[in-house]
């Protein structure tokens, strides 16, 4: 399992715009490189990132090979209700890395 980092406020006012940061350690192999023997290195990138807020998708992104290793994403959302933020990164090998964070809305 690779390392994923998320940063969300633990607590927010209802209606407050909050910033969410997410980063995952991943090689983001483009598929355009060759190894020392000249063989093509197969593409393996995270092609999909998704964030759910209590099971509702609030943010998603498709990634392409131009994205650097260890992709970092920051985005905003509105704090509506106390609940769970779920993050998912899916790579070309079908591996899905998940992370969660709880938020309390007052």
């Amino acid at each position, binding site marked *: 399992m690779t*390392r994923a*980092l*998320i*940063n969300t406020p633990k607590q927010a006012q209802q209606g407050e715009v909050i910033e969410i*940061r997410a*980063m995952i*350690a991943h090689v983001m192999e483009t598929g355009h490189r060759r190894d020392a023997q000249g063989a093509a290195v197969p593409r393996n990138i995270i092609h999909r990132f998704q964030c759910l807020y209590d099971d509702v998708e609030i943010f998603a992104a498709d990634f392409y090979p131009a994205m650097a*290793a*260890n992709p*970092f994403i*920051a985005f905003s959302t509105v704090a509506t209700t106390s609940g769970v933020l779920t993050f998912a990164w899916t790579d070309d090998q079908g591996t899905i890395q998940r992370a969660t964070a709880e938020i309390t809305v007052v």
Partner: protein
Amino acid sequence: MPSRSGTRRKASRRAILKSALAGIATLAAPPVLGQAKAHVIVIGGGFAGATCARRLKAADGTIAVTLVEPNARFTACPFSNAVIAGLRPIEAQYFGYDGVKQAGVDIAGQIVVAIEAEARQVHFADGARLDYQRLVLAPGIDIRFDALPGYDQTAAEIMPHAWKAGAQTLLLRRQLEAMADGGVVVLSAPANPFRCPPGPYERASLIAYYLKTKKPRSKLILLDAKDTFSKQRLFEAAWKTLYPGLIEWVPLSGGGRVIEIDAKTRTLVTEFGSHLADVANVIPPQRAGAVAIAAGVADQTGWCPIDPHTFESKLVPNIHVIGDAAIAGAMPKSAFAANAQAKVCADMIASLIRGEDPREVKLINTCYSLVAPDYGISVAGVYAPRDGLLTEIKEAGGVSPLEAPAAQREAEATYAQAWFQTITREVFG
């Protein structure tokens, strides 16, 4: 803190013009016999500038050379990490300019306020002006106090950068001495490019040596805005052996990039958390020294693009930039590189003044790091101009072997000391 650049950025052009019009005398030119003597001004008395000034005199004694440096004493950065670790007195880092003067270089202890590139004239704070045929800028780096929210000059008095040797070096040393055993030291390293690429890791090593020997319950966290660094495998292998469990390196992908500083609480805020430090050493982003910015030779990156043969600025003619301030392609910002560039630049300027074509050159960088007092590692490279950049020659260069007997590490530590003695003798002796 001493400034290598000696530039006061806020002085306005109008003020300079006024004082010039008021008839304040220009510095008396040296007496001239026969044809007019070429005059080269070198600004900045560090490894690059002092070397270049001396070498110009050696290359052609008929060239008048003025070295502009407001500080009477230079404090060297290489080995200043050993001062921080208590292994070396700061006095061993001090160098004066008597040797440079004896080599026939005029020393102007002046502060530069403006450079008029079209008139080929340097303006000083006291109103004096000096004409040049060629100008060499060797201002080193300035800390970008605008780059990291919360990190300004006041914060640097609480959380020192110690990336210009001198008062900041001693401040960090005193803080480490005052720290209780069991304290947490937090270092932060910037993204590339910056002065001395292996420097933060040598510093972490030598602070770890101090902690291990004097305050063994302490810990060191190194927050990094990068995922890779100079001599990484060598450093990491040595840390494992010499300082197990003492150094925690947090790379960019581990949330190591510092985005904010709170000096009041000595906190370093990263994208994913925050670190409370007992002693904090913030190595912030940097740029070319202020005089380079004022002269218009720095581009939007804050560094100075140069012709790799002559080190002449790509932005302003007749101004050469050497040392840490220059974009020297693959060459790192090190004292060795600054010294090597300065010699080539001086030779090229002498050739240009004589109307000769510049010769082909090769440059070397060798950079030692101490992981412990008797444990040295190195990186070396050979460079040549290719396609408008200083490019590393592929067949050459590289780092010390990952597997090596203790005797080789010890030899490299000895060679590091010898290098410092030799280069400082050559530049200042």
